[in-house]
């Protein structure tokens, strides 16, 4: 079986077999990232362009490292240093990049659907690195990889996704994939942060955090996007932290041995208490480390000749 897709735009259309192929391919690259010489020649001569219209350090660096460890050439494009500020459209920018023979474009954009629009317009493969509130498929895949790496199987797995679900592309990608793989997904947060119709994706809605935590094996915290919504969706940050912040006491409500995840960057003392973020049950830094291996796997699978 192989990944017969030009682009990776979202996890919604991926089959279980495709998801498993990506996770198994990432296993091979995890071995590579553990070597003294963390580089293989698989993508020699290929060009990967990171096109980021939103600030991002971790995702961009992760993709850059992944591409470099595959021996691809990497170019970073960001709007502040490009012609976008001069009024060029997304598609025109991308076509210019394509004219320089980019094989894979990694796009981060504030508008939902931007990656899809780009994929239709260019011959290069497009990987969505986050588009608005829509999806962040590679984050979803590295989360799945981290869960699996901890020896947990997806069938019947109980997962709580906690926080601003409505404005989280990470949550959306994870819900799609986890439900598909047979997990029981609970979404938790205040009503103002709960997207309408989320039950239709197969998730169960909880407004009471403590109740949602009972018996879960995975606690996936979302970042409170202070720079975006400010506190408009909630009276005060203190109140949010009290109702939906993950404390050591609350972790005890979950399954013994439950893991705590967070896509980062974390707001210590807001959605997650510092002692939880630094605890043994936290896999937050594993997520970052696995991100490189998972993205190497995705780049490899998408680099077949066009």
């Amino acid at each position, binding site marked *: 079986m192989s990944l017969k897709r030009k682009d990776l735009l979202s996890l919604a259309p991926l089959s279980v077999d495709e998801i498993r192929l990506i996770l198994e391919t990432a296993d091979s*690259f995890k071995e590579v990232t553990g070597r003294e010489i963390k580089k293989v020649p698989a993508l020699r001569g290929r060009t990967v362009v990171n096109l980021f219209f939103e600030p991002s350090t971790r995702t961009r660096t992760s993709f850059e490292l992944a591409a470099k460890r595959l021996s691809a050439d990497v170019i970073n494009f960001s709007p502040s240093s490009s012609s976008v500020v001069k009024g060029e459209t997304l598609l025109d920018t991308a076509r210019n990049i394509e004219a320089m023979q980019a094989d894979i474009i990694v796009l981060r954009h504030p508008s939902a659907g931007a990656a899809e629009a780009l994929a239709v317009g260019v011959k290069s493969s497009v990987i969505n690195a986050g588009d608005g509130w829509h999806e962040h498929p590679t984050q979803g895949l590295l989360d799945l990889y981290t869960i699996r790496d901890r020896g947990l199987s997806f069938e019947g797995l109980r997962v709580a996704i906690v926080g601003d679900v409505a404005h989280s592309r990470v949550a959306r990608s994870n819900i799609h994939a986890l439900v598909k793989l047979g997990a029981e997904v609970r979404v938790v947060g205040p009503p103002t942060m709960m997207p309408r119709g989320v039950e239709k994706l197969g998730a169960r809605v909880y407004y009471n955090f403590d109740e949602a935590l009972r018996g879960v094996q995975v606690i996936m915290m979302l970042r409170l996007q202070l720079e975006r919504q400010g506190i408009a969706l909630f009276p005060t940050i203190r109140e949010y932290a009290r109702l939906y912040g993950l404390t050591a006491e609350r972790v005890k409500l979950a399954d013994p041995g439950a893991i705590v995840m967070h896509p980062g960057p974390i707001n210590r003392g807001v959605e997650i208490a510092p002692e939880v973020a630094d605890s043994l049950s936290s896999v937050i830094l594993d997520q970052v480390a696995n991100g490189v291996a998972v993205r190497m796997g995705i780049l490899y699978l998408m680099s*077949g000749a066009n």
Partner: protein
Amino acid sequence: MVSSDRPLERLVMDAGDIARAVTRIAHEILERNKGIQDLALVGIRTGGVHLAHRLVKRIQEIESASVPIGELDITLYRDDLSLRKDQPILRKTSVPFDVSDKIIVLVDDVLFTGRTIRAAMDGLIDLGRPEEIQLAVLVDRGHRQLPIKATYIGKNIPTSREENIHVLLEEEGEDDWVVILKRESA
């Protein structure tokens, strides 16, 4: 299975031939390297891995001491990756010892163009700097496209380019056979 129902197959080694070849190669490895000092075997996935395990077992029986063994997936080092539409499935490389300063015997089932061995040597050298790399194969079928030569050969089997050699092994749920397969359309 090699008889009339599959007329395009021709048996060239049976289970006894394979076992004797493995035993002889094990002795040759020990003779050439004067024992097992610094010796390690690395099988190339997938057929080479099974043969490497058999060789290590024989060596252990002869010398009463164990030799480190590793498994190498050469996919990422292939020279045709950028030409393929679908990327081949990756399998895991697992070499749980430091290859530096070791005498590494690469093991594969069939030596053909030599391209796999070139890729395997590159892959191995990415893991460290072996003192020496040697090559053991069960079958050498000729038609080299690179200047590569095996150190230990189970059997030389002259073939035409249109033929295929299949090494079937018990570990893969088959009987131990080496057969030549004629391509029907060729």
